[in-house]
């Protein structure tokens, strides 16, 4: 009798973990394959059958990826880091103010503000690219980092304001009322009472904006191409087109280098970010 029960329990545990294993294999194996291939000598990559062995690995491809004569990842990463970090900081400041406003505003047009934010998330990419291109060309902003930082705000701000307001809504208003009774102005209350509590949320939104900006390809592809303004993705894609399949090892090493910064950023704020993202979606 108990034997059956034990066997059933074992089967259920085995079932559970094999399901997790299958899911993780699907989501992680391609990335692991990228890392492994990037460490293989380039001449082996095409001539031999796929290998999962850890033997005979080399860093040659990374040398090529980083060197100026190869992919030139140092310049590409520097440009992208600068653009994405600036984007993230600007987004954080403005989304913090707007998110706080959205969380507390109850006057005329409160719904309209929500609708504008939601619609803005649907008006993306090809729907706005042509005017952006024409206008920035007239202003002489094509091929500058400024235009990327500006257009990235359209990706990051709508979601960031939404997230910020969901973080602010969790802060009890009694705290602000108490501060007001003590004679603090609203901006002082925001700076000295609300912000310290909301800080983990603000940090998470900043990093989220960074990840979103880092993930853009289409805007950078359209608006930048010169050596000092192109982002990691544009740079790698250009080399991939021109070299074709001759240096896959080096291209894959560049790909790994392009993921590392976002993985680090994501790991830093994982918990707060996930709770924020999910809270907003389930309510909405």
């Amino acid at each position, binding site marked *: 009798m108990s034997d059956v029960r034990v066997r059933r329990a074992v089967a259920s545990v085995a079932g559970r973990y094999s399901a997790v294993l299958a899911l993780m294999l699907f*989501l992680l194996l391609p990335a692991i394959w990228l890392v492994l291939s990037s460490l293989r000598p380039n001449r082996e990559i095409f001539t031999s059958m796929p290998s999962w062995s850890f033997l005979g690995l080399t860093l040659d491809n990374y040398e090529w990826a980083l060197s100026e004569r190869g992919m030139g990842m140092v310049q590409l990463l520097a440009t992208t880091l600068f653009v994405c970090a600036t984007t993230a900081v600007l987004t954080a400041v403005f989304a913090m103010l707007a998110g706080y406003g959205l969380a507390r505003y109850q006057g005329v047009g409160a719904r309209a503000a929500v609708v504008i934010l939601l619609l803005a998330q649907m008006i993306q990419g*090809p729907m706005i*690219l*042509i005017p952006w291109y024409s206008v920035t060309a007239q202003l002489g902003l094509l091929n500058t980092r400024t235009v990327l930082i500006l257009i990235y705000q359209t990706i990051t701000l709508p979601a960031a304001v939404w997230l910020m307001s969901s973080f602010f809504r969790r802060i009890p208003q009694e705290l602000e009322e108490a501060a007001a009774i003590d004679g603090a102005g609203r901006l002082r209350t925001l700076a000295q009472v609300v912000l310290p509590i909301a800080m983990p949320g603000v940090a998470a939104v900043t990093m989220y904006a960074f990840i979103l900006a880092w993930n853009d390809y289409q805007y950078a592809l359209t608006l930048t191409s010169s050596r000092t303004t192109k982002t990691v993705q544009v740079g*790698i*894609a250009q080399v991939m087109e021109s070299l074709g399949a001759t240096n896959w090892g080096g291209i894959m090493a560049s790909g790994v280098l392009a993921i590392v910064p976002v993985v680090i950023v994501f790991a830093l704020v994982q918990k707060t970010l996930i709770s924020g993202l999910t809270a907003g979606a389930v309510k909405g």
Partner: protein
Amino acid sequence: MTEAVSAAIGTGGRGAGRVRGRTGAWMRGQGFWLALMSPVLLFLIVTQFWPLVDTSRISVFDYQPTRSPDSTFVGVQNYVDLFLNDRRFWIITRNSFLWMLGSTAVQVVVGTAGALVLNMNLRLRGLWRGLMMVPWVTPVVVVAIIWRWMFDGGENGLVNYYLGQAGLLSDPLVWLSSDVWVWPVVLLASTWKGTPFVILLVLAGLQSLPGELIESARVDGAGAFKRFRYVVLPHLRPTLAVTTLIALVTVWFKFELIWALTTGGPAFATTILPIYVFTQAFRDFNFGMAGAVATIAMLTLLTVVGVLGLLTRLRKEGSS
């Protein structure tokens, strides 16, 4: 934008007493919150809503900036050309629906399954939930590298090699150059990239499901499938509706994944409307035509979202 902020901060910060009259009272009341929001709202209107309107405006002009800086009004000519004279247009429209509905459906189904898995009682659950987000943070060009490499057309390409070993393929398949086989690769890559976010949202929906509900269903003798069908699924329905909507919009405008993988090819086999906007505008520099395609793409999205909304509403009324 910065002026608006400093104005808001200036009036808001001085607070009671100095600012007089109605405006002052309003600033001390609801106006303050509006002032905090206004820089962002104005920015979004100028940088997203106006460009949207402008895009549909140029769709009724003949505007090809590399040929002539002037644009001439042509009415619905661009649309007529697309519908009647452009053979590619209908293939691209078909591709668009295949992509939008196919990719979204696969992502939502796989994502829901994944969320059910990660909602189980597991050791190191936090670790799995963190690791699963790796595809989500991976930039699309890198996603393209990964999947192009796995589906490499040579006999030592990962997928070709294993399919060959399993005896399913006698000759290596050149996946990305085939009209037909390019689609599974593109859909697989988009599922890989998009599923983690779906899992994230559905997991949140699952966590708000009271454990007692499932327990009492179990006590009543409902099996795993019945528990899912009659307890979990009805509870998840609102979450799934929102998730589907988000996936749909993302899949539509993040055409860049297809672009990085296939640049819409071979020929136009994987071109969808948003890609066609891009090629018309920035390869052929036919801005008027691109505007027309963009307008159609926007209307297509709105129609699909509208139909979806209507279906969920009917569903809700039907069940209550």
